[in-house]
């Protein structure tokens, strides 16, 4: 599309902010995969509508204030990227624009406090643990709490699982085929520590040695996807410093983290350490992609046959373009039947902290998602992202016989141990 944006005024982010506007041909192919368009049926709450709106804000004809509603409504699920034939890099556009919006907006105190509370706890496993415990204690008194924090309380688990001890190095079994570093994740460590354990076991069974840097920090994805750029930069820098040079890859097992690191080129644009950040991003791989690349060592059959429905996490399928590797892994397991749900491309409504900030849309999407998953009558749900896991588990609560929700590597680890 044509535009009259003054690129020079946008600094190092000008490419991220204008590529989408230039590449968009307004064909509308993004509309059917956009969860907010599906829900509201309004151009302004569609990807191409937001692109148009961003263009007008950057051209100076619409004030930033008027664009914030529809921009905040976007889940950042990136389904539109998969659907787009014209190559619009919507992920870069929305991330860069959110950072710009965040620095210019005046926000109500409630939202400010809520965001600050989330971004000061979730990315830090110890703080998150205490916050979840405190949250669990106050949950019975939810009705007395301010409205803005009620959805957050709803997502909390009644009890926290025991923390998993992670060694500094987890050795490979058999001849060594690779050496990687593991990003242990923030929220995931607290809510589902067994995912890291399963990841280590699976890597080991595949002849891969894993380093777990003790001083690693949050990748910054949660902050980056909400526009809190300075905060994201700070923890991302610490993560970069902590990863040793001699590893083949940095492995992520939460899709949100992987896609966040993929966006370091936007976060670090114009920063002195841009090159190092991009180098780490290039080295970062989802656990499923890595295993698929090195070639999975044939797992033995599961003790009992299992029908597994695979849920595509947006940040893996759309943001990282990875749909085949998890499926290759699951179908390699004898005794496992892979099921495909309808509307795979539509977000489950988790989307970072979206389910806390926009509970109504998130609830509608969550309900649709579990209905679609359950229509395949699965014995288990497999996926690759902790956010989706929490959201889907929560919406499965209403089912009498809810199947377990597992990370792909948890099922693989089970096969290796059966």
């Amino acid at each position, binding site marked *: 599309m044509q535009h009259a944006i003054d690129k020079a005024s946008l600094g190092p982010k000008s490419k991220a902010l204008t590529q989408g506007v230039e590449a968009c041909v307004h*064909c509308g192919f993004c509309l059917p995969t956009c969860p907010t368009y599906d829900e509201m049926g309004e151009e302004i709450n569609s990807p191409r509508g937001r692109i148009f*709106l961003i263009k007008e804000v950057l051209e100076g*004809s619409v004030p930033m204030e008027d664009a914030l509603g529809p921009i905040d409504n976007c889940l950042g699920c990136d389904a539109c990227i998969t659907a787009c034939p014209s190559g619009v890099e919507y992920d870069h556009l929305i991330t860069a624009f959110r950072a710009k919006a965040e620095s210019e907006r005046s926000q109500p105190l409630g939202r400010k406090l809520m965001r600050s509370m989330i971004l000061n706890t979730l990315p830090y496993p110890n703080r998150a643990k205490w916050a979840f415990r405190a949250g669990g204690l106050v949950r019975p008194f939810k009705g007395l709490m301010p409205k803005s924090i009620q959805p957050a309380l709803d997502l909390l688990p009644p009890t926290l699982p025991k923390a998993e001890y992670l060694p500094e190095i987890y050795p490979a079994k058999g001849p060594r085929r690779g050496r990687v570093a593991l990003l242990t994740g923030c929220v995931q460590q607290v809510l589902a520590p067994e995912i890291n354990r399963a990841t280590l076991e699976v890597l080991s069974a595949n002849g891969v040695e894993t380093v777990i840097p003790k001083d690693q920090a949050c990748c910054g994805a949660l902050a980056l996807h909400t526009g809190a750029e300075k905060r994201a930069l700070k923890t991302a820098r610490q993560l970069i410093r902590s990863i040793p040079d001699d590893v083949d890859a940095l492995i992520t097992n939460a899709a949100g983290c992987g896609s966040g690191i993929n966006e370091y080129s936007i976060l670090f644009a114009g920063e002195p350490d841009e090159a190092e950040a991009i180098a780490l991003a290039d080295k970062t791989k989802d656990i499923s992609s890595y295993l698929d690349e090195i070639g999975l060592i044939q797992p033995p059959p599961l003790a009992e046959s299992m029908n597994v429905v695979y849920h595509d996490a947006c940040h893996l399928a759309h943001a990282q373009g990875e749909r085949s590797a998890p499926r290759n892994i699951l179908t390699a397991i004898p005794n496992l039947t892979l099921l495909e749900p309808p509307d795979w491309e539509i977000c489950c409504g988790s989307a970072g902290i979206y389910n806390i900030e926009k509970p109504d849309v998130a609830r509608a999407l969550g309900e649709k998602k579990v209905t679609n998953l359950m229509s395949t009558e699965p014995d288990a749900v497999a996926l690759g992202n902790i956010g989706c896991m929490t959201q889907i588990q929560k919406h499965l609560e209403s089912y009498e016989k809810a199947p377990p929700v597992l990370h792909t590597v948890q099922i693989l680890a089970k096969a290796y141990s059966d």
Partner: protein
Amino acid sequence: MELLPELAKLYPSDRLFTKKSQLITYETDGLTSFRSEPLAVVVPESNEEVIATVRLCHKAGIPFVARGSGTSLSGGSMPVEGGIVITLNRLNKILKIDPENRFTVVQAGTVNLKVSQAVAAHGLYYAPDPSSQQICTIGGNLAFNSGGAHCLKYGMTANHVLAIKAVLADGEVIEIGSESGDTLGPDASGFFCGNEGLFGVALEVTLRLTPKPQRYCTLLAAYNSLKKAGDAVSSVVDSGLLPGAMEIMDRLAIKAAEMAVKAGYPQDAEALLIVELEGETDAVEEDFKHLLALIENTGAYETRVAANEAERLTIWKGRKSAFSAVGRLSPDYLVQDGVVPRSRLGEALVKIETYSKEYGIDVANVFHAGDGNLHPLIMFNGKEEGALHRAEELAGKILKMCVEMGGSITGEHGVGVEKKAYMPEMFSEIDLECMKRVRAAIDPKEIANRGKMFPGGEAPALSTVGSHPLEKAGIISRE
């Protein structure tokens, strides 16, 4: 009468958009070279609200346009400046499915593909398949009598519309056609199809459903020249085979589609021909053997057959993404929609190539070869001074060529704003005059999609109702 306060009585504030930030997102459709800001956008949730809106517009003399998903490639759903946009996206329910009598009744805002999905369990589908079928709406398909790759065998939208409930521009509600498709007298719903929004707004449409073919056989043939591919089409047709679809893409279109969806098309080909046969298993498989033998003699240097449904869908995904994918090759482009007699396809393509060189402008070609419907994509950079103007000039030249060869300026995208200047190339003054009278009978104030289809500015030639100018001049006579 002031229209906005009246609309505000009809709609709550979250369904009446008047702020600039909201209005700009409706400024354009699939043809972004043309934009226009409306006075307001309304989001009705019932037929009654649509009818009341049209009546208010009629009373106030303010123009309106109905809009589905805004995918028009001719500017058909672009707002009329200072007018009202009536969005039909929330009127998207499937009201009735009658599998036994093979029809369905849907609201106008229903997405084309959703119709097929809703009736799939009965072994039926809705045949017309525009490339944007996953998002374009039935209301828009009806207004533009949309086609698609498979319309070669099954016909355009008009062949699948049995009945229509609509509100005309003056507020009158009509019901035309019948569920059985049998009508006494002229085919009124056929007459409504393709009106480009100039008659009013369709509310509910009764669609014919078609049994799903038992078997599809799809082949992809690669050629080292466009002409050979064009000639192959003629030999398929001459053989008496009736494929469901026959499509050609040229080198640039192949490149763009490959970048977009990685369909695995042969990248060194000058032209790709897709031919699909469909129907009952035995007959199709027998015909397909003939087709393969025939294609072997057309000089294709590579022929691939889709081995399964997934491969077939990949072939089609590339083709159906081609328009939007050209966005990867050029920041701006005009999608053309001319038609030439199929027998003169090769000749037309050579001419387009000559014009393209003459203007120094790249033209990608994607077309429904079976019915001679060309889609040249004229690429330009709108930032260059005069580039759009030159691209439009080239587009005009191609359209004139189509008409001279005995074809048409539009096959399926409609006239809209984009091709209205070329109407006189195809129609005489008398023809146009006749069309204007029809319009005036239905929409005396010319408020429905004003400024579209007819050449010239707004509200054309109302004054000429009465004797025709040529009658007055004594050139023609009715006796």
